């Protein structure tokens, strides 16, 4: 198995278009603004995936060329936030998050902006990503200079669904090298920590056994993510970046027992969070 924690890199890392660290903080702040008015919501997903999405969208993703699939619809809050951060979505739209009649729905749907595909019914996104990547093969686009890359954000809890492994097998059999899974391994699902519900480990070995290029890293480490993405972009097999993350990362005021899947934000805590993130974002 390939581990991207190794310091030596052959692949050049492109110059960033946005400051990924600031974008990551912006994702957290914007997600907080979306969730706080309701007093609870999918904030933990944005906290855990902030750096993986920040590096992707601030430095790598080519709008109109590449595709972004947000497999777990509950993570759409993070997709909205990062799209607003990098200028792909009007930030004012985020104020309508989860409101009646709004297309900025709390669980991603067909109406959701900022993604090519999202699935409220979990673990279906990779099949869609495989379908995109395989379409490029059918059309002979993989050899083109601006060949699209398909990025699929998945969560570790989704590994419990069989369909995801069906898709993983297909992608590896066909060596879909222009497909990358960004796996937010935050060890959080509805009923509690993932490892208390189902033993998924060793996650990296499972993907490697399925024939994937595997990188496993601290998902809040920007440099480690940069290297992992660079390797994934040059791989001739499908790649998975296993980002080990926390649903409380980057928001120090959260209590240690906060329910990462569905964080409760009473007004006092929300105010502390705003103070903390706005200071860091300024």
């Amino acid at each position, binding site marked *: 198995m390939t581990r991207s924690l190794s310091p030596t890199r052959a692949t050049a890392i492109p110059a960033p278009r946005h400051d990924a660290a600031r974008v990551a903080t912006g994702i957290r702040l914007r997600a907080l603004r979306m969730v706080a008015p309701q007093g609870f919501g999918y904030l933990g997903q944005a906290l855990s995936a902030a750096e993986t999405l920040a590096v992707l969208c601030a430095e790598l993703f080519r709008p109109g060329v590449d595709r972004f699939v947000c497999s777990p619809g509950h993570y759409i809050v993070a997709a909205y936030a990062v799209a607003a951060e990098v200028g792909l979505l009007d930030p004012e739209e985020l104020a309508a998050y989860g409101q009646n009649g709004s297309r900025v729905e709390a669980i991603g749907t067909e109406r959701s902006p900022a993604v090519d595909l999202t699935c409220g019914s979990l673990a*279906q996104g990779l*099949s*869609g990503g*495989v379908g*995109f990547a395989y*379409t490029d093969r*059918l059309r002979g686009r993989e050899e083109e200079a601006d060949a699209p890359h398909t990025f699929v954000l998945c969560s570790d809890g989704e590994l419990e669904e069989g*369909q995801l492994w*069906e898709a993983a097998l297909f992608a590896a059999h066909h060596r879909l090298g222009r497909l990358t899974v960004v796996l937010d391994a935050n060890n959080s699902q509805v009923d509690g920590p993932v490892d208390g519900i189902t033993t998924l480990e060793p996650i990296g070995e499972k993907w490697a056994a399925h024939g994937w290029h595997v990188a496993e890293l601290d998902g809040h480490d920007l440099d480690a993510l940069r290297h992992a993405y660079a390797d994934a972009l040059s791989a001739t097999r499908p790649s998975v970046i296993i980002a080990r993350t926390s649903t409380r990362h980057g928001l120090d005021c959260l209590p240690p027992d906060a329910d990462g899947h569905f964080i409760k934000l009473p007004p006092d805590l929300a105010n502390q969070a705003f103070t903390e993130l706005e200071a860091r974002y300024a």
Partner: protein
Amino acid sequence: MREPPYQTVQKPYGRALVELARQREDVVCLSGDLTRQCEVDLFRDELPDRFVHAGMAEANMIGMAGAMAREGLNPFVHTFGVFATRRPLDQIVNAVAYPNLPVRLIGFMPGISSPGGPSHQAIEDIALMRALPNMTVIDVADAAEITQIVPLIADHPGPVYLRLKRGEIPVIFDEDRRVSLEQAQVISTGDEVAIFTNGMMLSAALAAASTLRGRGVRVAVVNVPVIKPLDVDTVVRVARSARAVVTAENHSIIGGLGSAVAETLAEAGLGRTLRRVGLRDTFAEGALSGPYLFERYGLTTQHIIDAAWNALDRTDEPPAAAATPVEAGEYAPV
């Protein structure tokens, strides 16, 4: 219209799809490890660059097809009806029906035409697909309809579920049959009993009508290949002109053609005695042959005759269905 026993042909669907794909580069063919059984070995051999072995992974196959359709391809997805509908239902909902994508789900071996037992008998596939918004649901009766329906559904902007008999396909219609996605086909008119049917039950309904006419009963027969959207106007018009209505389908009586007709009659305020021929809320069983199951579960010509007789409140003995001997390569209804 031909007379039984009907001549049969092999792989009319497979040939029609290859023909279509030669003319349309957007057509791609996905198969879930049932390639020869779904007649797309022809496609695999003729157009391998557009053929996808999805393997035994229906959920993933549906998800991929949805994404391919988003990209502008015209995916035709092939497996048995059970694995095309009940197994990946959530994937069809989320990856195909809700986004209203032009994915064509082709489910072979309908109803109890398979002797393979409940795991292989698609007795509720139409009910499942009919309940999904955006989905068009089709059950065709013969090779002439199959040949025409393939290019028709390729032009349809939304998702389609097409249910197809496997193996020897009867030729019931002459070449002048014109299938429509909008209109049901009134084959004959009569003001006593109207029989609405489709798919594998069409030939049985025609035979039943012939026997009933022999006893002086005036019978209308309507072929309804498109169950959804239903041609409500034709259903109401024909039912209004008859005293009683019979539906006949190779499917559960719950959720399929019989239900669709019942809903239509009720909403039109049209009180007509209705008898539904089909599986009566039961699973079937494994057996040696399909015809045995048609007998055992009430899907024969005689069952349609009896249903019409009963719907007309006739108390005398119903006429017996005429037996149609068949040679090898011929087809007649049970």
